[in-house]
């Protein structure tokens, strides 16, 4: 059977020794977390607000361990100041996996403004941003994004599109 995209992300996280996963839930990220919960390699921290995750991953990294942040599109809005004032100036490798709402197939108008602004927000902060659209490209894009985060010591954003992960069938 074909390997599903969340399994490829899990495999790359392990290959890059990213043991700590901090998250605020969303339906797309949950597809990754569901697998991570069954794997003793991972140590998962539920957050109350996405901004916390920027500080948590910074602390883990400076303590000698790697962490990633999983969050919904709306959470990027909650995390912006910490990205700009902690992760970027202190050069923290911070892989972010974002369930991209407000894009293809969105039913909820209140998800659209931030979702449409997401690439421009990251571009304005010079945070490299990659979109996962097709299953075969997932291993390469995720591995490349992680490699870049640690070599350049900076945050990277991986946007998981609804084209890959599916959209809600609500109208």
């Amino acid at each position, binding site marked *: 059977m074909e390997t599903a995209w969340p399994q490829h992300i899990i495999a790359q996280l392990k290959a890059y020794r990213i043991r700590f996963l901090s998250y605020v839930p969303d339906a797309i990220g949950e597809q990754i977390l569901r697998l991570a919960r069954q794997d003793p390699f991972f140590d998962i921290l539920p957050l109350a607000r996405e901004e916390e995750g*920027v*500080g948590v991953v910074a602390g883990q990294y*400076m303590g000698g361990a790697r962490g990633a942040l999983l969050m919904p599109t709306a959470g990027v809005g909650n995390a912006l100041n910490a990205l700009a*004032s902690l992760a970027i100036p202190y050069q923290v490798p911070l892989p972010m996996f974002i369930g991209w709402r407000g894009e293809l197939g969105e039913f909820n108008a209140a998800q659209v403004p931030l979702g449409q602004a997401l690439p421009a927000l990251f571009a304005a902060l010079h945070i490299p941003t990659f979109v996962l659209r097709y299953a075969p490209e997932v291993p390469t894009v995720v591995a490349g994004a992680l490699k870049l985060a640690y070599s350049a010591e900076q945050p990277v954003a991986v946007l998981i599109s609804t084209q890959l992960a599916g959209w809600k069938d609500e109208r």
Partner: protein
Amino acid sequence: MINRLRATRFIVAQVHDEPIIASLGNPKFDLFAAGDRPQNFYMWNSMGMAASMGLGLAMARPAQKVIVLDGDGALLMNLNALTTAAARAPQNLIHVIWDNRQFALTGGQPTHTAFRADLAQLARGAGFERVVAVDTQEAFEQAFLQAMATPGPWIIVARVDDQQATARPPKSPTYIKHRFMQSLGAYDT
């Protein structure tokens, strides 16, 4: 009332190689004045993030006490972080909050602890069990020694006077980071 600089000097005299994360403004200024050391992390902005960074550091280094020096204003901006840290409850975390009941750095405007908010009660409500509120140097020293010697996580809310700090630590974030990581032997290769 406690003087933040005097209490910070006590902390620095007690630690060996334990990392200390200091929040923006006065907590980090006084940490520098009390004794610059590579294991000091000076946060130059990211208001509220000291609490979260301390949690991450405590998770990464379970064998060592990790100390956070926070301000009441900064913590009030990231109160949800208390609920996250209490749920995880790392035994090695010591979170000290200097409660001067104001945003001193920006001109002394009152924070909500000047009125009805009580950070020790909020910490208990978040799920912390070892919470102490102190308002004398002697009580602070006793609480800090207990926190260093026994499993936490510990929350110490210290009522401090309104003295402003004058010292200024190094300003380069990357210098602070590399020095800090090197001192912890935390280099990621």
